[in-house]
């Protein structure tokens, strides 16, 4: 395209030279005016100027707004997590409840010493992670405040299914005090609360390098993790191979534990996911049936129109030749 237009422009220039000669000749030979106004020379100049202005304005715009200015370095942004092929993130797949069970075990044995899971009650674990008896037994291991008795004293009682998972610290201040000023976030909604979701959590848990790359500044009391924005995270690496003993005999490698606990945290953040996907499937099934019905009904309603026949019956001719 460009080459062709270039060719044309050279031709235009050639005609320019010839045209100039022409014009002078014509002016000399005849007195007719207005031939210069619609000569190809002027038209070409206008087109070339318009093109130059267009190209210039685009270039100016790009010069002004083209390059993006990043306010932060890649280290401040943090390494974006890799996309992992989570099975439960597919449209028609559910959580792997065996993995949820393992993930809950990892949470209980590893994460729960610092992180609360305060929006999850024991009753919601029943049926999806634990059996009723297991959940009851686990709830009874903790003590909760009772209602005030007759004398107004608040006593302790063992937990029930309706109680929420106990937090490791009394309040945020206690948590900060115990963790060198860093607050371990509540994990109930953590998968929804972080960019990258499951991928981010998994990458963060498994992404601690053996040693920070050369020249990297790691603050006092912090650990290097490329996935954490700023790369300095107060949480040290906690998952090591063989840290927990899975009851189903799965080898407890670091990545296996991270995968299980991430899936469990995703369940904690959206326990309705399985039901939601089933509801979506129901909607799709009903809608397809309705659509199929509507197609048949349309055929039925339109049948009289579609099956009619329009016949043109020309008047009988009596062999007279057509008029001229």
């Amino acid at each position, binding site marked *: 395209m460009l080459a062709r237009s270039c060719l044309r422009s050279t031709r235009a220039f050639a005609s320019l030279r010839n045209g100039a000669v022409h014009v002078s000749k014509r002016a000399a030979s005849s007195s007719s005016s207005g031939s210069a106004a619609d000569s190809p020379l002027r038209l070409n100049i206008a087109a070339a100027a318009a093109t130059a202005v267009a190209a210039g304005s685009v270039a100016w715009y790009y010069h002004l707004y083209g390059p993006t200015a990043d306010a932060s370095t890649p*280290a401040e942004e943090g390494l974006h997590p890799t996309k*992992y092929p989570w099975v439960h993130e597919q449209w028609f797949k559910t959580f792997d409840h*065996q993995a949820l069970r393992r993930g809950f075990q990892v949470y209980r044995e590893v994460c729960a010493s610092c992180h609360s899971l305060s929006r999850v009650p024991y009753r919601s674990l029943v049926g999806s992670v634990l059996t009723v008896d297991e959940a009851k037994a686990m709830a009874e291991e903790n003590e909760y405040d009772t209602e005030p008795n007759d004398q107004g004293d608040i006593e302790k009682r063992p937990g029930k299914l309706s109680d929420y998972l106990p937090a490791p610290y009394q309040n945020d201040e206690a948590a900060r005090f115990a963790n060198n000023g860093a607050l371990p976030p509540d994990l109930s909604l953590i998968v929804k609360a972080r960019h990258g979701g499951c991928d981010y959590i998994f990458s963060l848990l498994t992404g601690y390098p053996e040693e920070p*790359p050369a*020249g990297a500044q790691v603050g006092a009391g912090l650990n290097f993790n490329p996935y954490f924005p700023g790369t300095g995270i107060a949480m040290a690496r906690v998952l090591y*191979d*063989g840290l927990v003993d899975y009851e189903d005999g799965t080898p407890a*490698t670091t990545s296996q534990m991270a995968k299980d606990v991430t899936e469990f945290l995703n369940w904690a953040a959206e326990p309705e996911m399985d039901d939601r996907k089933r509801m979506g499937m129901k909607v799709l099934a009903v809608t397809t049936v309705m659509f199929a019905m509507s197609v048949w009904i349309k055929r039925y309603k339109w049948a009289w129109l579609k099956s009619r026949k329009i016949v043109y019956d020309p008047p009988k001719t009596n062999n007279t030749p057509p008029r001229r």
Partner: protein
Amino acid sequence: MGFWDTITDLVDAATPWATADAEAPAKELPEETTTEATKEEESTEAETAAAEEEPAAEEEPAAEEEEEEEEEEEEEPVDPKETLEEECRNSKQCSPAKHHFDECVERVTNAEAEGGAKEDCVEEFFHLAHCATQCAAPKLWSVLK
């Protein structure tokens, strides 16, 4: 990846010979009983071991010893993520990133030895880590349960 899986799932569900297991495969079904059984086995083993060593000794310390021995005997599971990413790091796919990272590390360590380094290798590390995890992700998921 989701689309064709979905299609095959629907086909599987529609075929008359498809079976849907309400529970996990029978082996894993009675979890409590299996754990109990293993416990029983352990205790019986412990008993036999105790019987072999000292018939009159208490069972508990023997059982503890047995457990410790088992733990020692058990091979530490090796994290597949580490090995896979190491392979990926050395693969041809990531060789440019690795080359840059190695060069940067060498430059920065030399600069640190001479005086102060004015740069770090975080960005090069990011590129290498991105390449390695990207390459290892599908392989890792095929290994993990």
